[in-house]
């Protein structure tokens, strides 16, 4: 699994690609904890987790994902998923948390939605 970070229109984009194996779980959990720690009152952080090229999402990391979403939303920010594939959606739906994790069909849509929500210029 690879993790890359980028910025677009003031939005942090964390792109995950490849397959999350057992050894990657702790690395991904740490990454999500880093995102959670971005939550600070008065500085709403907007994050897109771009999973376009991610093959799978083990249920073991979903707890950390939800924690990051809650923390960022609690500080007025947001964390959304971009382009989850069918396998990832199956895991989110099985756990029932698809209702708690906002997702968009593409990275562009996700960035546009976050930018519009903030009133910041789009792409």
């Amino acid at each position, binding site marked *: 699994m690879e993790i890359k970070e980028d910025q677009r229109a003031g939005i942090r984009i964390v792109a995950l690609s490849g397959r999350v194996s057992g050894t990657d779980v702790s690395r991904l959990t740490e990454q999500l904890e880093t995102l959670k720690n971005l939550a600070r009152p008065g500085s709403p952080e907007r994050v897109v987790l771009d999973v376009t090229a991610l093959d799978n999402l083990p249920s073991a990391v979903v*707890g950390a994902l939800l924690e990051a979403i809650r923390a960022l939303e609690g500080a007025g920010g947001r964390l959304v998923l971009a382009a989850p594939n069918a396998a990832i959606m199956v895991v989110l739906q099985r*756990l029932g948390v698809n209702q708690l994790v906002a997702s968009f069909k593409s990275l562009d849509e996700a960035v546009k939605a976050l930018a519009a929500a903030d009133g910041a210029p789009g792409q």
Partner: protein
Amino acid sequence: MAFFDKLKERRIREQEKRTRERVCQELAKNLAWNQYLLGRSWLCPYCGKVAVEDGKGKSELPDLAIAHLKTCPEWKEFNGITRRPAELAESIKKAEITHYMKTNPLWRVRDSAGQWHCPYCARPGEVVFATNKVTREIVEAIYGHLQRCYAYEGGKGAAQTVQYLLTVIEKAERQKRLVPRIEQLMSSDPLWRFKDEKSRWACPYCRHIANDVDLSSELLVRSVAPRQVAKHLVESCPDFKEDTPPGATLEDLRALTAGERKQAGIVTVAAPQENGTFHAIRAELDQMRTLLSESKQTDERQKELLRSLEDAGKQQREMLPDLPNIPGFEFEVLFRPMATVSGDFYDFFKVGEQEIGIVLGDVSGHGVEAGIVMSMVKKCLKIHSKGQNSAAENLRVTNADIFEELAQSTFASVSYGILNAPARTLRFARAGHTPLFLFNPARAPQFAALEPKGIVLGVDKGPVFNRTLEEIEIKLVSGDMLMQVTDGVLEATNAKKEEFGIERLAGTIQKYGNHEAKYLLHMIDLTLGEFRGKSPAEDDVTMLCIRVL
């Protein structure tokens, strides 16, 4: 003539060369060709018999194998059908069991009732035999036990000694003898049913407060507690003597401090109070988190935590619930924890006169915190199950109880069913757990993944959880096979990083679903192991199967 003889000879040599090359290739890469009895003797992949004694690692193995193949009726010049590696592995295990039963006294230890005790976990297996004759039935039963044995670990576990097994048996028989006397004492003598403010039993001999003996209800006092008390007296009480009365009085026990705390790090969760507050559990959880954080600082603390984890894991395995014995139904469970303390759990408890609750769950993560959350969820479900005939409602109340108590990244997926055996119905709800699989060749469709909506426990305080949760009722018929698994099964991966997934599980259930529950679980386990290959298990595996007879 000489020319034709030479030609024939040449053809034979070429044929033999090709055979040898093929045998070398198969030995190098084919799992079915690499099965060894007792790690030494090579098994023919065609006939499944020992073909080369002490063949492993020998450079002569290809030639010795060819010598056997030429006599093997099932080889057919490589056109025969090789046995499945799992099938060969099963034959090997059974042959090994027979060998050990004949040669190693450790494998023949029995209690006074003739019940065999496992050389690994020391627990009694479902095998009773009077003589030393090793029959096929005995081997099958021992094989079945080893498949489920947590200590055997597929042959990698450490075996005990004969002396250890005899000590375990002696203690178990002593406990068994004590239980009726303790039942009588607990029903008549207040000293024997004294409990602290958290409903924990206090020993009138050593005055120790037993965290695991829960006297919070009359049912527990009458059913579970006497066995636990006997266990404490025989195994851990320093002051107990069978013919001597206890040294403590009721006043002594009352004087024990209410706030007495157990050794840090040992996972035994105090029983939650019936009013639904969980201060005791919360304190346990906070204490454990502190310990976990401190453990990163010093070697001594790490050692302490490790010891505690081992204790907790042992306790968790010892506390695995018994399978229900309900006429017309067959229950079976396969539980294979990966970490010392597993996040997977299952339980069965009485809900009403005719109904039992069946729970299978999985707490995210492993280790101490997962173990505590697991205990908390189990206890909540059990407490709220009394008279509650809606599976979904029980999950709703449980979620409301535990939501505040869980760390933000921790959640529990739970499936909960209420089985009414006489009415042959199952009311089922699912809090983010894997689907309930139903297989019956007489139904159309034969296989169904039942997935009523539901969110995992602990991620939403109520509104979304309550709105989402659905309950279904299944009318059960003879031949139904209900299967519930944890995500360690579906998310198991092989070397190609593929997941086992629902389709492979469904295929295995459809293939073996007509057999008895134990066999089905065994075959799923084998299939899963074959699929995983050399990839290590990354999660706990639990499978619960109910067969309607």
